[in-house]
């Protein structure tokens, strides 16, 4: 029976921009059951072996499969379909760049709008969480083998979940006081409510994972302590060391890394100071240097803590911004201002060294660089001053070297990322790595994909004991 095709996407209710810049509540409110069914009905139900959405997903969620279950009003079924390959749907449904992945080649795109897969996934996770629906999870009998996971971000949590299901005894070590890694300290509440991360962590604990917070591997315990005690180790330590530009005045007060700014706000709840003890300084104007997702997170958080005017300063042009469309759109709606083709050259502070001015230089775009993007070239004599009360650097992060400092066996690349082969094996036998620690900076779902594949490789290694003589470096 032919059904009429709905070309337009069902809109997702959102908080009004004017209201939401005064709170940290989630921006996108998500589909109701009725709206979700309506959006689900737009899916053409491509067959499993053909569906471009499944191929576009880094963890290959059976997307038509779970959408069909929504139509059948079987949310538990939908959740179980997702959980076959993705144990963190409440998170991926919110932070995945679906437009570049599952939704990119959606066949509906040829007839109208692509199916809103992200928001449907989110609906399933949220509905299940709110109604106490849990997936039936098959856990293999305990096999007596132990695996340590270092870092409780997306790659670590995914690896832990898969290994638990295979029957391993899994312990996750986290340096901070709260598990979740970048999901907790980095991504703001209004984009990913912390209760959702906590729920996913709780679920993992329910499956039997042990989570040890306040343990810094490389300090509290060494990697050697772990390799002695465990049959295998997975390093999902992320890319947590912020980059600064060593310009005059860069250490003026009021200049932060995005990590510090976001950690104070997200993890430490500085927006509730003095009820919470961690402060954040609020002024009139804040400038964010950089134009990726982290930059948008910092800019939008700045508005919410009370900055009146927030600028994104970017050295290239609009089309080169690396942030997701949705984030840029939300930032613009909220009043974030964008300045393109500018680079900072100096920071000037007042008599107490509080930053007051960022001196910028105009760029023009030159020849493409190695990344294929046209290189910004400063225009001599074009310097000008922008008055500011705070500056946030969001120009990228490198892997944290604390873990590797005293482990010469672990080879790293010139970018500081860990060398691994296609099975996520590092240069140290029994030690695997994935996520931003091997990629530099990527996305939550790519890190989850790594965690998944690494879990498989760890299982194979523990069962066979095989380790190659040489590690053939995989490039990401």
């Amino acid at each position, binding site marked *: 029976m032919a059904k009429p095709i709905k070309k337009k996407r069902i809109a997702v209710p959102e908080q009004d921009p004017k209201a939401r810049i005064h709170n940290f509540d989630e921006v996108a409110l998500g589909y109701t059951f009725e709206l979700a069914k309506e959006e689900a009905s737009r899916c053409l139900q491509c067959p499993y072996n053909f569906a471009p959405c499944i191929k576009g997903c880094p963890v290959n969620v059976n997307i038509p499969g779970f959408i069909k279950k929504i139509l059948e009003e079987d949310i538990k079924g939908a959740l179980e379909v997702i959980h076959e390959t993705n144990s963190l749907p409440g998170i991926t449904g919110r932070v995945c760049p679906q437009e570049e992945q599952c939704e990119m080649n959606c066949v509906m795109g040829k007839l109208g709008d692509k199916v809103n897969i992200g928001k449907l996934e989110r609906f399933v996770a949220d509905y299940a969480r709110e109604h106490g629906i849990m997936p039936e999870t098959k856990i293999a009998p305990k096999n007596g083998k132990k695996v340590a996971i270092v870092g409780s971000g997306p790659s670590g949590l995914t690896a832990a979940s898969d290994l638990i299901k295979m029957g391993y005894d899994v312990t996750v070590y986290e*340096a*901070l*006081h709260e598990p979740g890694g970048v999901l907790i*300290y980095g991504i703001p509440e209004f984009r990913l409510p912390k209760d959702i991360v906590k729920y996913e962590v709780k679920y993992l604990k329910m499956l039997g994972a042990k989570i040890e*917070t*306040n*343990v*810094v591997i490389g*300090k*509290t*315990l*060494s990697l050697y*302590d772990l390799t002695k005690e465990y049959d295998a180790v997975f390093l999902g330590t992320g890319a*947590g*060391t*912020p980059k*600064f530009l*060593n310009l005059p005045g*860069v*250490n003026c*007060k*009021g200049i*932060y*890394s995005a*990590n*510090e700014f976001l*950690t*104070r706000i997200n993890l*430490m*709840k500085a927006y509730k*100071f*003095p*009820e*919470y*003890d*961690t*402060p954040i*300084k609020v002024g009139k104007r804040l400038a964010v240097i950089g134009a990726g997702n982290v930059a948008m997170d910092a800019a939008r958080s700045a508005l919410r803590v009370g900055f009146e005017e927030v600028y994104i300063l970017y050295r290239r042009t609009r089309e080169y911004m690396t942030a997701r469309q949705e984030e840029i759109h939300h930032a613009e709606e909220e009043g974030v201002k964008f300045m393109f083709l500018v680079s900072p050259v100096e920071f000037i502070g007042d008599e*107490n*060294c509080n930053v007051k001015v960022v001196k910028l230089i105009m760029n023009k775009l030159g020849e493409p660089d190695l990344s294929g993007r046209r290189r910004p070239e400063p225009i001599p004599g074009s310097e000008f001053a922008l008055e500011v009360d705070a500056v946030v650097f969001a120009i990228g992060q490198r892997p*944290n*070297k*604390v873990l590797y400092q005293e482990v010469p066996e672990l080879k790293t690349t010139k970018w500081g990322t860990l060398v691994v082969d296609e099975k996520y094996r590092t240069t140290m036998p029994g030690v695997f790595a994935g996520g931003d620690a091997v990629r530099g900076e990527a996305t939550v779902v790519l890190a989850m994909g790594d965690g998944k594949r690494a879990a498989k490789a760890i299982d194979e290694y523990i069962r066979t004991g095989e380790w190659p003589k040489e590690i053939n470096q995989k490039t990401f």
Partner: protein
Amino acid sequence: MFEIVDKKVLAPNIKWIRVKAPLVTKNAKAGQFIVLRLHEKGERIPLTLFKWHKEDGTIELVFQEVGKTTYELGSYEPGDKIMDIVGPLGKPTHIENYGTAIVVSGGVGAPIGYAVTRALKEAGNHVVSIIGFRNKQYVILEDEFRKVSDELLITTDDGSYVRKGFTTDVLKEYLANGGKADYVFTVGPVIMMKLIADITRKYGIKTDASLNPIMVDGTGMCGACRVTVGGEIKFACVDGPDFDAHQVNFDELLTRLTEYREEERLAMDRYVKGVH
């Protein structure tokens, strides 16, 4: 949760506590620190490690009540629990047998000065400890220092105990009188460390200073603790806390430490008024 098992008041507003933190003791070394968070709403603050005991899994901390968090910690009694403690953090102080080593500690820099003195002594150095305090009331850890030092030189700013003068005066006199010094370690107020570095620079004595900037995570993630050393940006929490004192931009450190002065006052007022 980390239980406080013992507590003493060493001087006005300076307290000593012993806390159960077995994992911290496993790999701890002199010069390292911990980060603690008192409770769900607490901030993360670094405190230096005074002593640690693998046998019973306890650590000893000495701290001065200067702001809301340290006052609140000072109100904790044995049996009370600290929500989070992570450590040991930072690189341990580099210890070798230099010959004669001078450790200059000021005020509540003394606990870390003690740990380093002990380690230098164990490595075979002839250790001269110079410890300075505001006045007699504030003299702490004297007996501890005596046990691990070959020579102990105490001074007070106002002369109410042993002698009058700053640690810088003592070091200057020691060196002027031909005292031997192959290495100097200094920890305490930023101004003091800066002046100590100025003195030893003239004599060309290798000098390390243990820095105490504002920190959040303490694991190299945020950069709040960045300092300029030899013109480069370093993170005190992972690249330090010890740096070549002759290369450190102490003035910048001093300024950066004042970043949250207003907020600290606000939090403190609120705490004193009992709003928490």
